[in-house]
């Protein structure tokens, strides 16, 4: 869809596919596409809002809107904006895109759900470049203070950000240790391994006395890596594939077990 749009962040979206798929279709999130404002629903906040294509894809597959609406991504007048807009599209839980705010927003939602004695769980996905924003750590601290066991933060650690590898731009060393030190139950997994993702989400659900975090080690552009390597840019941040490359990408994904 980013090819059709002529802009967007395909590789940032691809790294998150397994986690988003597990959340929406693995039985982890309770939701009803016909009742997107039901207070009892579970909520997913895509704090790394630029990866919105993966969220729109999941929402389309789930039935929030017709699949062919995906081709209206970023088009004037369309509901599928370049970053999530909660006022425009039912099922979007937060308007993100200015990195660093989604986890805090999730804390507010988790607090409200607990006040209202709802069973709802809030999942927030962050980027590994995004955790360079100080506000993220303000949120980690607050999550522990309020013992938000109904909140799970997932860091999509794909190793890259806009200007290069995270290890090069700003190496946030010992990420799982740091999050654990803030008082969250923390797991580290291979995030493009569906079984590992499912196991981790299941484990997180069992934790009743702390907020939970999953550091999901992934590959940016997972699924089309050989293609990116051939293009000489495994980061390929914020640019759509050309029509030809997109064709090849779809063929590659279809032919991969």
């Amino acid at each position, binding site marked *: 869809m980013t090819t059709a749009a002529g802009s967007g962040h395909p590789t940032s979206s691809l790294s998150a596919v397994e986690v988003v798929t597990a959340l929406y279709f693995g039985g982890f999130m309770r939701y009803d596409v016909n009742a997107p404002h039901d207070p009892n629903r579970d909520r997913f906040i895509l704090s790394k809002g630029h990866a919105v294509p993966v969220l729109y894809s999941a929402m389309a597959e789930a039935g929030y809107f017709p699949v062919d609406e995906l081709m209206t991504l970023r088009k004037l007048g369309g509901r599928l904006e370049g970053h999530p807009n909660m006022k425009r599209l039912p099922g979007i839980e937060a308007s993100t895109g200015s990195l660093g705010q989604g986890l805090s927003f999730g804390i507010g939602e988790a607090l*409200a759900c607990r006040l209202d004695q709802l069973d709802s769980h809030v999942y927030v996905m962050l980027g590994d470049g995004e955790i360079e924003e100080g*506000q993220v750590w303000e949120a980690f*601290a607050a999550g522990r203070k309020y013992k938000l066991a109904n909140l799970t933060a997932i860091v999509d650690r794909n190793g890259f950000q806009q200007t290069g590898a995270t290890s090069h731009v700003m190496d946030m060393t010992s990420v799982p240790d740091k999050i654990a030190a803030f008082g969250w139950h923390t797991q580290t997994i291979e995030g493009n391994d569906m079984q590992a993702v499912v196991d981790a989400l299941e484990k997180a659900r069992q934790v009743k006395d702390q907020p939970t975090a999953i550091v999901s080690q992934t590959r940016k552009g997972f699924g089309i890596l050989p293609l990116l390597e051939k293009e000489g840019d495994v980061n390929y941040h914020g640019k759509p594939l050309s029509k030809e490359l997109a064709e090849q990408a779809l063929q590659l994904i279809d032919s991969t077990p």
Partner: protein
Amino acid sequence: MKIGEKSGLKLGQATRDAFGEALKEFGGSHPQVVTVDGDVGNSTRTEVFAEAYPDRAFNVGIAESNLVSVAGGLAACGKTPVVASFACFLLNNAYDQIRMSVAFPALNVKLVGTHAGISIGEDGPSQMGIEDVALARSFPGMTVIVPCDAPSAKKATAAMLTLAGPTYLRLGRPKVPVVYANGCDFEIGKAITVRDGSDVTIIANGLMVAVALDAATDLAAEGVSARVIDMHTAKPIDEEAIIKAARETGAIVVAEEHLAAGGLGSAVAMVVGQTIPVPLAYVNLGDRYAESGDAEGLLEHYGLTAAAICEAVRRVSRR
């Protein structure tokens, strides 16, 4: 504080204290109201609500960015969160969080900025909110209210909590004169003419309303009839009241405890310039930061006085 004395006004509660009481009162009958604090609840007076309703009061410590986005999340789930901090920490520090977690999604968050203006006194410029009205006005859809005294601050608090949509309420630190000793009919967006007049209009908000009344008292002794308007709502601005003042009095002075850029003065100018252009003059902080000092001394030193308003009236009448 001697402001208001010559106009017969008596000193009353600080607007932040009035807010604290009104919030607790409203919160008692409105279970959706919650507070989110950044370690200054005993300064902003949300502690009064917090003491009464501890389950609905959250303190996230010294973390204004998190503070505002948490409020956004609470509002997204149907709560009416009241986020209070010093104006400069709330608007300046968390501007982008207000943008993306509140204003852009048009969430029902009530932002309250205390310690507005230079009258906070000795703590000095780092704690003074002097650009907050400008910043608040810049958000599409934000309602911006600056009450002048305790009675109107209480009404403004209730009105803010009843209104649907993002709102900013500006409050001060010191005790201030009571303008509305006999109560007021407070309606968001409707300016109140506190003193009628025909030769010039002084439009003011916050502390400067009482200062404007003092100026009007002085001007009356010189045979100048000055109308004083409490323009408590900076956004949406009461265009009708401004146009009426321009048409009926022919000259306007705008007085505020705020920088020249972007506050009430700017809002009034935009209306006047597009409708009935009349001479305008301003009494405000100008384009500078203040310093540490006693509140009255600071107001005197930085020209936020009745004398300055009188001088502005003479300037604007000469043109």
